[in-house]
């Protein structure tokens, strides 16, 4: 008969040692333990472990958390002092923003068309086709700069027939 009785789960034995089992289940397992040496040994081990773990108790903290929570929510009291990990996160975000701005600026400079340093032949009678060549032909070397705004501004100031040649 006892061999047919199911051995209790290991965690049930621990809960029995902790006094956490319902009364009816306590009775069932106690009956099994009285007949099963192996389970009785496991129960004694569980009792020992449970009691030993109880030696680690934590004293009541004197911290008044409500004062800190109130301050963090901005309701009276001192301003919230960020903990170290929050400051580290803030630094990481700032660094990521700076890197992103730097990369964006670099890509912008790299993708802008580069102006040639050659100068047109003096006395040439033909109008150059492309806008940059036109700028050079007009000795507008300041337009070899970095933004199209400067070139566009000058082209817009050109006479209509020259502008047409430059922008076609």
């Amino acid at each position, binding site marked *: 008969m006892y061999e047919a009785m199911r051995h209790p789960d*290991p965690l049930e034995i*621990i809960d029995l040692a902790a006094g956490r089992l319902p009364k009816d289940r306590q009775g069932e397992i106690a009956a099994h333990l009285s007949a099963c040496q192996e389970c009785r040994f496991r129960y004694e081990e569980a009792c*020992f*472990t449970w009691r030993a*773990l109880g030696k*680690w108790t*934590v004293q009541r903290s004197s911290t008044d*958390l409500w004062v800190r929570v109130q301050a963090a929510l901005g309701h009276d009291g001192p301003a919230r002092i960020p903990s170290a990990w929050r400051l580290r996160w803030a630094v990481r975000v700032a660094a990521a923003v700076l890197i992103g701005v730097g990369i964006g600026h670099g890509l912008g400079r790299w993708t802008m068309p580069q102006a040639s340093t050659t100068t047109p032949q003096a006395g040439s009678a033909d109008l150059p086709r492309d806008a940059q060549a036109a700028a050079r032909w007009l000795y507008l070397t300041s337009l070899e700069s970095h933004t199209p705004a400067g070139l566009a501004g000058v082209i817009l100031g050109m006479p209509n027939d020259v502008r047409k040649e430059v922008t076609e």
Partner: protein
Amino acid sequence: MVAVRRGNMSALEEVVRRHQQNVLALAYRMLGRWDLAEDVAQEAFLRVYQAARHYRPAAAFKTWLYRIVVNLCLDARRRLRKWPGPLPAESTLQAGPGDCDPLETREQAELVQLAVAGLPQRQRTALILHRYQGLSRRQIAEVTGWTESAVESLLVRAYGNLRNALVEIVQE
């Protein structure tokens, strides 16, 4: 919590005062440092306030609160691994009741703490919630998001792993 959801600060204060000791104890056992435990506890109650409108009364508040605390503690431990801080502060352990020699039992308490700290993280979390916070395996599963069978397996292994270490400690 319904009152907290409406922005009632008195209700929030009551929630904080009622649960702060348990939350601090849980955070301290998981992190081993009071300064980190206080940061986590503060953050947990702030999140309770911010998330109050999502809280469903059907869920046990304690389980919901502990879930926040455990997740914050696990985040804090991950950050500690990346940026190890100073050594743990002086222990504020107390020996259990009914012991004869305070010094001897204080040493045993510290050794028990070290034994628990030596467990793998999931076993340690499950054990702390079961032994020290009094949660059932179902409640532990709700707090951690693990299955009940996983919780049971972790607890059995944790108690088994601790048994041999504790025999040596108590017999000294």
